[in-house]
C-alpha cells in the first residue's frame, strides 16, 4: 500500500480550500498553484507550499494545461494530484499522464473516466447491464435529417445533447419537427466550442423530471457502495442552484433499487474513488440512467452532512489503495441537508455574472451551518472562473428544520460590493411547493413567481435610504456653497462653530 505524503491541487477556489482542510487533517503536505489571474486568493494562503505557474503566452488556461501541471508535480516531487471538479478532473488523458509519470491521480482510472465521460459508450454499457435508459439514438447523430428520423420514431419532444458534454452545455430541447434544423445547428456549434467535439446524440425528453443522483464510493479491490441520493432538481438552464440530501421523492425501497443500479454501473467499469450516478425520475417514479460523473461534485457536502463520511478523505485513502471500511448496511442517512450555491450573479438581470471586488463579507457561523468558500474580503470575482463564491450547507433533523435554519443563515450572510444569488435562494426556500417537497427541474420556470425574495419592508427601507442620501447630499451642497461664497463675511465665532458641526 502506498502512502500519499504530499499532494498537488490542480484547482482553485472553494474546492481547493476544501481539499486542503482534509489533507491537513490527514497530515499530508499540500501544494497549491498560483496563477496571475488571482495571485492573492485564500486557497494559496492555506496551502503548505505555493507553486507559481510558469508564465505562458498560449491560450490554454492554467488548470487545463496538462503538461505544465505534470512538470510542476514532478519538480516538486509530489506523490499525488487532486483535480477537484471541473478543469482536468474528468480528462482521461490527464489521468493517464499522471499514471505514466508515476504520480497518483486522486480519482478513478483513466479507462473509467473515458468510458463514463463519453455518453454514447456509457449508454452502451448501461444497456448491456440492463440499467433503465431513455429511448434515443444510442450513438452520435450525423445530420439533422437523421435526427429528424430518430425523433419521428421515439416521438417529440426530444433532447439533443453533446456527446462530450456536461453541466448543461450543448443541450437543446426540440418540441416540434420544425425546430429541429435550428436546434441541431445550435447544439452542434455549442458542443464544438465548449468541448472541441461537435458530436451530439438524441434522446426522448422527459417533461418535468426530478434530477436524482447517487453518491458512489469504490475501492481498488472491487468494493463499491452508495451513500444515498442527492436531489438536484432546482436548476436553471441545467445549472444546479440548490441541492439537498436525501430527496423527498424517494422511499427506502426506491432508494435501495436505484442505489443498487448505481452500484451496478460503477462496477461495470471497475470504478474506484468517489463518483456520482445521475438519474431522471419521472412523476410515476420511473427512473432512467443519465450519466456518471467521475469526480467529486460541487454538492458533495450534503451527502457528508447526512452520512458523516468525509468524501475527500476517502478519495485519498482509496488512492492509497485502502479498502473501504464501510459495508453498505453501515451507511445510514440521518437527518436532512440543504446546500445553497451563492453565486456572484444578478438575479434581477437574468442571472448575469457580477464581476468586482468583495469589499466586505460576513459569513454566518453556527451549529449545523457549514460554509465552503474560497473568497474573503478583497477577493476579486474575475471573468476567468465560474461565478460561485460560496456554498452554504445546512443540517437539520428534519427537512423543515433545515429549511428554517438555511433561511436564518442566509439572512446573516452579507456581502458588500457585489450582488449574489442569496435573494434567489430565499425565494426557493419560502416557496410553498418547495416546502412541500413538490419539485422538479421545471420548478424555477413554473413554480417560482418571482426569482428573488424581498424581506419585509425592504423596498420602503430602500426608499427611505434613497431620500436619506438625497437629503444628505443637498445639505453638503448647501454648506459648501455657503462657506465658499459667504465665508469671508462670516463672524469667526460662527465660522468656527460651523466647522465643528461639519
Amino acid at each position, binding site marked *: 500500500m502506498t502512502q500519499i505524503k504530499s499532494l498537488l491541487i490542480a484547482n482553485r477556489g472553494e474546492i481547493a480550500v476544501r481539499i486542503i482542510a482534509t489533507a491537513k487533517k490527514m497530515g499530508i503536505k499540500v501544494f497549491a498553484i498560483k496563477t496571475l489571474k488571482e495571485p492573492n486568493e485564500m486557497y494559496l494562503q492555506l496551502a503548505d507550499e505555493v507553486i507559481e505557474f510558469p508564465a505562458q503566452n498560449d491560450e490554454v488556461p492554467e488548470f487545463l494545461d496538462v503538461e505544465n501541471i505534470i512538470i510542476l508535480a514532478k519538480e516538486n516531487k509530489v506523490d499525488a494530484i487532486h483535480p477537484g471538479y471541473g478543469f482536468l478532473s474528468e480528462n482521461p488523458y490527464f489521468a493517464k499522464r499522471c499514471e505514466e509519470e508515476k504520480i497518483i491521480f486522486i480519482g478513478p482510472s483513466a479507462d473509467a473516466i473515458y468510458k463514463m465521460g463519453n455518453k454514447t459508450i456509457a449508454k452502451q454499457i448501461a444497456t448491456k447491464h440492463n440499467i433503465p435508459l431513455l429511448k434515443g439514438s444510442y450513438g452520435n447523430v450525423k445530420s439533422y435529417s437523421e435526427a429528424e428520423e430518430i425523433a419521428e420514431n421515439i416521438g417529440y419532444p426530444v433532447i439533443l445533447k453533446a456527446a462530450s458534454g456536461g453541466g*448543461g*452545455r450543448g443541450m437543446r430541447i426540440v418540441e416540434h419537427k420544425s425546430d429541429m434544423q435550428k436546434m441541431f445547428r*445550435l447544439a452542434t*456549434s*455549442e458542443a464544438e*466550442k*465548449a468541448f472541441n467535439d461537435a458530436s451530439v446524440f438524441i434522446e426522448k425528453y422527459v417533461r418535468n423530471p426530478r434530477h436524482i443522483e447517487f453518491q458512489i464510493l469504490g475501492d481498488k479491490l472491487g468494493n463499491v457502495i452508495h451513500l444515498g441520493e442527492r436531489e438536484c432538481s432546482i436548476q436553471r*438552464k441545467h445549472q444546479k442552484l440548490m441541492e439537498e440530501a436525501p430527496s423527498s421523492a424517494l422511499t427506502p425501497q426506491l432508494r435501495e433499487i436505484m442505489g443498487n443500479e448505481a452500484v451496478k454501473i460503477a462496477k461495470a467499469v471497475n470504478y474506484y474513488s468517489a463518483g456520482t450516478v445521475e438519474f431522471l425520475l419521472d412523476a410515476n417514479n420511473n427512473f432512467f440512467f443519465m450519466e456518471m460523473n467521475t469526480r467529486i461534485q460541487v454538492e458533495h457536502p450534503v451527502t457528508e452532512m447526512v452520512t458523516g463520511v468525509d468524501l475527500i478523505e476517502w478519495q485519498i485513502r482509496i488512492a492509497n489503495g485502502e479498502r473501504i471500511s464501510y459495508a453498505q448496511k453501515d451507511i445510514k442517512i440521518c437527518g436532512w441537508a440543504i446546500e445553497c450555491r451563492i453565486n456572484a450573479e*444578478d*438575479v*434581477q*438581470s*437574468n442571472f*448575469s*455574472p457580477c*464581476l468586482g471586488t468583495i*469589499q*466586505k463579507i*460576513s459569513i454566518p457561523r453556527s451549529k449545523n451551518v457549514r460554509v465552503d468558500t474560497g473568497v474573503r*474580503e478583497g477577493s476579486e470575482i474575475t*471573468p476567468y472562473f*465560474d*461565478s460561485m463564491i460560496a456554498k452554504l450547507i445546512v443540517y437539520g433533523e428534519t427537512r423543515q428544520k433545515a429549511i428554517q435554519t438555511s433561511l436564518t443563515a442566509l*439572512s446573516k450572510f*452579507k*456581502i*458588500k*460590493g457585489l*450582488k*449574489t*444569488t*442569496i*435573494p434567489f435562494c430565499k425565494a426557493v426556500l419560502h416557496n410553498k411547493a418547495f416546502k412541500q417537497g413538490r419539485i422538479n427541474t421545471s420548478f424555477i420556470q413554473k413554480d417560482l413567481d418571482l426569482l*428573488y425574495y*424581498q*424581506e*419585509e*419592508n*425592504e*423596498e*420602503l*427601507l*430602500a*426608499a*427611505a*435610504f*434613497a*431620500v*436619506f*442620501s*438625497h*437629503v*444628505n*447630499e*443637498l*445639505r453638503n451642497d*448647501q454648506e459648501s456653497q455657503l462657506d465658499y461664497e459667504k465665508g469671508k463675511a462670516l463672524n469667526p465665532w460662527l465660522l468656527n462653530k460651523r466647522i465643528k458641526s461639519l
Partner: protein
Amino acid sequence: MEKHTNANLVTSENDRFIALSSKGSKFDFQSKPNGSFKYKNQLFDFKVTHAEDGFTYIELNGQKYAVELVSVNQNKYEVLINSITYVFTVETPFSLKRKDLLKKQAPQSKVESIPAPMPGKILDVLVEEGAAVNEGDALLVLEAMKMQNEITSHIKGKVKKIFIKKGENVMKDDVMIEIERN
C-alpha cells in the same frame, strides 16, 4: 464605536420628498420636527448606522438590513439592500409636477434599442438591417459564461441599425441592435 447618523437631516420641517421606484412604486415621505418621517400617515423612525463591521445598516422598528448606495446620478439613486437593487428618483412635489408635465409633452419614441443583457461574445447575427421582425424573433446569438443565448426582439418592427458584428465582444448594456416600432 458605532457611528450613528440620524436619518433626519431635512433642513426645515414638513419638507416632502417623493421616492419613485423604477418599477412604479411611490413613497411619499414628510419630515417631522422630532426627527422622524411621516409616511402614509404613520410616523417612522429610521436609523442609519455605519457600523464597525464595515457595513452600513438601515433600521426601522427592529428590522435592520445592510444597505449600499451603488450609484448616484443627479436625483437618481441605486440602492442595494439584501442583494436586491432598487432604483429611485427622489423628487420634491414641485419637481415631480414638472416631470409629469414634461412626460406628457414628450412624444413616444419609435426606436427601441436591444442592449446586451450580460457581457459576452456575439456568435451569430441572425438578421440584417431593414429586415422585418416579429415579437419573439431571434436577432442574434450571444455567448456568455460559455452558454449560448438567443437574443429575441421584444417588439414588432423593422431592424433599423446593427451595431455589432459576428465575433465581437460586448459589455453589459451595450446597444447591439435598434428596432423601429411598426
